[in-house]
């Protein structure tokens, strides 16, 4: 029986969740502390899932091999069921309805720790090692050995190094910042007026517009990228057809590294257009919801005082949207820092292969980690990306802060 690692994960994760979700309810019914139930259920679930998952696999593999893996999933019940059935009531059976809290929180905390916190800690650790999964590392998690400790070397190289990796890193930071600097304001400039316009029309029409504008958000990014790739195709694309009507000579939007507008590569603009097209529906819907929350009497009072619609929008609506603008700008900034799929499909970081004109940080991290096996260097870049997002978010929180409610 080979390749048990995925099953070991399934056994553990499945029964950790079931155990920690159900056992608090059982404990609560028997008058016991449900938080202890969550903890005990978690431990018993994992142990039972692993030990009896493996046991059932061995048993059924010899008699019913086609279903052995599926049946092994029930291993967790071997100890959990007796625990639930045989647990003695402490102070008489009565439902206190407190078990639901640990029954939902303990599994979530478990998932958060195992699938988010631990990988994050692992990424932080990797940033200090020359880690390549193909190399033979030391006995503890593969760290050490050929995956040697390099301390803060990567971070020093990022600042001072002039070899290829640091140069690519600095180039990807510059590209990411350019991308974000264009995307965030453009997104807000499009979505706020658009949401106001949609909000101002009749409710039935509003639903139609809202659906239409939200459609690209739920469309596959790869599909969007392929479609825009065709539009920007240098030889047969729609973009060149349209600009050709205005007498502009066709350009290689996604391929020519020499073309720039205001210092920004034209390929980056092309990618930004595709990204905005897919993304702006999300903020539009958020702003529509926010606009619906602004009390009408505030606008009415302004109109009574003789304010024009533009003045109402500028002096009443926009200031009251400030918390929503903060929310939208923070999330747009974070998602634009994380842009990957559209660029990977449309340009693969090019044009310009040495200093890719659209090679953003996540693409650089991906290539280093999964194409060239430089996990340590990629992890160090990830930490810098997180730090940048944190700094920019803190700045936005400060810039758009408000101390009032309506």
């Amino acid at each position: 029986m080979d390749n048990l690692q995925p099953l070991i994960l399934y056994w553990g994760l499945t029964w950790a969740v079931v155990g920690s979700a159900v056992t608090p309810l059982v404990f609560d019914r028997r008058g016991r502390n449900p938080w202890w139930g969550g903890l005990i259920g978690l431990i018993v679930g994992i142990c039972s899932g692993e030990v009896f998952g493996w046991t059932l696999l061995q048993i059924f593999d010899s008699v019913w091999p086609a279903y052995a893996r599926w049946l092994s999933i029930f291993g967790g019940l071997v100890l959990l069921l007796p625990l639930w059935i045989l647990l003695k009531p402490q102070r008489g059976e009565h439902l206190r309805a407190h078990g639901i809290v640990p029954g939902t929180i303990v599994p979530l905390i478990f998932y958060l720790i195992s699938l988010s916190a631990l990988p994050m800690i692992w990424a932080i650790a990797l940033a200090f090692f020359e880690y390549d999964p193909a190399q033979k590392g030391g006995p503890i998690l593969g760290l050490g050995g050929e995956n040697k400790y390099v301390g803060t070397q990567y971070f020093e190289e990022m600042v001072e190094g002039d070899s290829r990796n640091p140069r690519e890193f600095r180039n990807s930071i510059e590209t990411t910042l350019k991308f974000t600097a264009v995307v965030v304001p453009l997104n807000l400039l499009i979505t706020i007026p658009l949401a106001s316009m949609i909000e101002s029309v009749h409710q039935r029409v509003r639903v139609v517009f809202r659906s239409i504008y939200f459609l690209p958000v739920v469309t596959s990014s790869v599909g969007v990228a392929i479609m825009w790739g065709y539009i920007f195709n240098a030889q047969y694309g729609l973009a060149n057809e349209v600009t050709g009507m205005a007498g502009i000579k066709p350009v290689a939007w996604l391929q020519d590294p020499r073309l720039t507008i205001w210092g920004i590569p034209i390929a980056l603009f092309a990618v930004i257009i595709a990204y905005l097209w897919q993304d702006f529906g999300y903020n539009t819907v958020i702003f529509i919801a926010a606009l619906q929350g602004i009390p009408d009497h505030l606008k009415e009072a302004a109109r009574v005082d003789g304010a024009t619609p533009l003045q109402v929008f500028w002096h009443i609506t926009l200031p009251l949207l400030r918390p929503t603008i903060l929310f939208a700008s923070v999330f747009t900034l974070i998602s634009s820092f994380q842009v990957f799929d559209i660029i990977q499909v449309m340009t693969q970081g090019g044009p310009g292969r040495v200093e890719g004109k659209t090679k953003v940080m996540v693409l650089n991290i991906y290539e280093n980690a999964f194409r060239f096996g430089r996990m340590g260097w990629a992890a160090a870049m990830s930490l810098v990306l997180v730090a940048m997002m944190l700094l920019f978010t803190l700045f936005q929180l400060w810039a758009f802060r408000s101390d009032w409610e309506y």
Partner: protein
Amino acid sequence: MMKKITILTILAVLLVASVVTHQPADARQSVTLRLWQHQEGPFNEATQALIDAYTAQHPEVTIEVETFEYDLYLQTLQTSLPAGDEADILELFGTWVCGYSDYLAPMPDDLAASFDASQFYDAPLGGYQCDDQVYGLPQEFNVEYGAVLVNQAMFEEAGLAFPPAWENWDALISDAQQLVQENSDGQMTVAGYHFTNADAIVFSFLAGILQRGGDYWNEDQDGFQFDTEEGLASLEHLVNLVEQGVVDPVLFNDTSNWSGDAFFTGQTAIALIGPWAVAYGLDSFPDFGAFDYVALPAAGDEPIFAADSGWGMTVSERSDHQDVAWDFINFAAANADNALQWNITTGTIPALRALVEDEMYRTPLLEASPWLAGVLDELQYGRYVGEMPDRDLLFYDIIYPYVLDTLQGLMSAEDAVALMDEDANLMFED
């Protein structure tokens, strides 16, 4: 209640213990092997045929194939080999093998005792030999340089002789210039000679160095030397091709109009690509017209070229059935009849010398893949590219980007070879 739980726990422990000690009698007889392979129609089909043939002879053996999309396969290998959950038999590209040799089983002694390395070409086998041990067997001789695909209809339409027999580069450039087509805006719609995808650029550059009498390895074979007279001349030759207008490297490269697609969609008349692309092309474009595969002119006396080993099979060090897995590999790669069928189905060049040098095998090979005639006699000039710390990094992240940027006019040839030299040699630093 404690008594009940204790009894249940004891019963559970007994159940586990009984399973641990119980081994089914027939488990020792039947062998199930897992085989990993990248996804590519003809390759998967050809390997399955080998498995069917092998299991027919060995009914106690079952081989389960799992295929992965190419990029995913790279990642899966990178993570699974150190984690230890890889398959028993791994299809690997020759130049990856030494990088993974810590996790691979060398050829067993009994097989090694009778193994004749000379039955394989040096270039493909070279990838599977690490520290005097053989870690797998090649199934193909991967050739990315030496011959080009040529489109008969386009040549005839341009009034050029077909198949072409270029005596020198000037003759090829002349033909390519006549084959170029542009639209009314002056954009190139059909390239004359498309050599600007990643593999073509890398192998053109390396072959250019070798044919001019140079070497990209230093004397001790522990570092690269691109910033040499031959390196510069090789790159300048490629720049000259672009300046002569045979291809627009902005519109034709690895991400835009890749040469495999460009050739079979009529966007290039001459494409520098390995013959493996023919199986792919005919699979995707079955109605494509007549074509041929003809030799490129040499820059020096001999058409020496660097060759990149090729696809083959290896055995995991952790496999419980290494002997059976190696037996299957030997059956697939070293048996001339089986290897021939695999090469015919995949449209690849054999790694076994007999299939090329023995008419008994060469004839059916050329009947199935007549375009190989142009390259089989060139195989003798193939030289293994060498054991590199990271072949993909050197090829796709160093040589290709610098050369393409030079061809696109973003940097000078002198700067490009100097930077290539510097970046490539960083791979050897601890």
